[in-house]
């Protein structure tokens, strides 16, 4: 367990009291976001997303398999995240730890609960054969805010994915049927300020984290609080507001990128 140097914490907090962030951003401002799709030829869909120095790759693979017995007419989706040791000196190889599991589950719920993938259109033979969609997330470079980078990479990869019908002799390939996705925005709280899109330095000293996914209407589609601090009602309101505002901008950039 690393003890974050007191000096770094003091520095970041002192800046915060002056209304400043370490990298000069406003508290409601994201780092530069870059989205690149179609980066892996073997995948049905893929994307590399950078938020500042943080870099996540998502790949979509599809297979034909059996549906769950309680939803015989629906395709199946599954999400896995690997915090591979490539991305950080602190990540170890081995079975996924709590952090990787939380990341995968939050991205998974963001896609699943909002029914981004139209699973009911992925049935091949009711009760027998459906499409299975695998979302695999590889964290390549970790400089904070994995949740947003991973969610966005998953959405960008899904948005450009083709159902590989030809490979399975099921007709021509066609785009994966999708609904409008909610966009996840994460804020952290430290020294009683709330800052969106935390860098690694900020994450390490943060008391609490809150991720809010919002849709085109500004409705809330998912939330996840983390870390061992707390939020007041007012702070939650503030985080939601910032998530709606930034979510709108990020959605615009995603749509431009995938030509929508």
């Amino acid at each position, binding site marked *: 367990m690393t003890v974050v140097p007191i000096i770094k914490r003091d520095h970041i907090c002192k800046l915060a009291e002056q209304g400043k962030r370490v990298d000069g951003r406003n508290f409601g401002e994201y780092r530069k976001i870059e989205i690149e799709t179609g980066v892996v030829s073997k995948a049905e869909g893929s994307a590399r997303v950078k938020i500042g120095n943080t870099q996540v790759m998502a790949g979509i693979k599809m297979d034909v398999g059996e549906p769950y017995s309680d939803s015989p007419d629906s395709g199946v989706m599954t999400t896995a995240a690997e915090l591979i040791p490539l991305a950080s000196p602190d990540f170890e190889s081995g079975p996924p730890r709590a952090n990787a599991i939380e990341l995968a589950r939050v991205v998974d719920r963001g896609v699943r609960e909002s029914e981004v993938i139209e699973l009911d259109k992925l049935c091949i033979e009711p009760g027998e054969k459906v499409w299975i969609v695998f979302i695999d997330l590889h964290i390549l470079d970790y400089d904070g805010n994995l949740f947003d980078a991973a969610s966005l990479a998953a959405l960008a990869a899904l948005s450009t994915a083709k159902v590989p019908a030809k490979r399975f002799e099921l007709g021509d390939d066609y785009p994966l049927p999708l609904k409008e996705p909610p966009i996840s925005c994460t804020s952290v709280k430290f020294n009683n300020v709330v800052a969106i899109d935390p860098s690694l330095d900020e994450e390490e000293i943060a008391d609490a984290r809150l991720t809010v996914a919002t*849709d085109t209407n500004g*409705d809330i*589609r998912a*939330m*996840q609080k983390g870390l*061992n601090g707390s*939020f007041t009602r007012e702070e939650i309101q503030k985080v939601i507001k910032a998530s709606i505002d930034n979510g709108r901008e990020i959605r615009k950039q995603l749509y431009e990128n995938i030509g929508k």
Partner: protein
Amino acid sequence: MKSDIELIDSNGKRLDGRGPEDLRPIKIEAGVLHRADGSCYLEWGGNKVLVAVYGPREAIPRHSQNPLRAIVNAKYNMAAFSVEDRKRPGPDRRSREISKVISEALEKVILTEQFPRAAIDVNIEVLDAEAGTRCAGLTAAGVALADAGIPMTDIPVSCAAGKIDGHVVADLGKEEDNFGDADLPVAISPRTDEVILLQMDGHLTLDEFNKAFDLAVNGCHVVSEIQKKAILDKYQSASEAE
């Protein structure tokens, strides 16, 4: 998942007869286990949860120790027989995520800096499950920690709210959880209303969120009273026994 079940009728009555703001029946008993340093048995609707607290004690292995404070290890575990289709024993991804968010929530109220290098283990065992087990588990953990005499700034408490058939209601039951529109589990430190756990799945407008959030916080305060009574009962019966 949608269904044809009408979850709330025209009079605002829910399937089990509750009004929108009503919680399911709750029963809490502190100090139910012999070996544990602190324990709690809780029934909440159809949920049955048992919590045992061990610690503070030296954290093992040594490299897991934090030289500045105690670590809090909540372990949420569902008994194989607690659900309709038998659950394979051992932790799955869901239970590991719940263990993580509950651990983080409890760390906020426990005075961990009093016990550097120590571990406080909070074992949450779900014996019978019926919607809302994470709220039930965190609530029972709060009582078990108090029973163990762990110093805390407050007794943490949890309650969910959600949306069913377009109505915002407190403390979703089984069908409401399965066929409802949204679920919002919340845990707070009740003396300050600080939010220590917050998750949401589903679809809520901002207004609905605010309404649901307030219902959940109100629910927390209702449950908090039951917690305090359980702890008092334990101390009274303990002092009577002397």
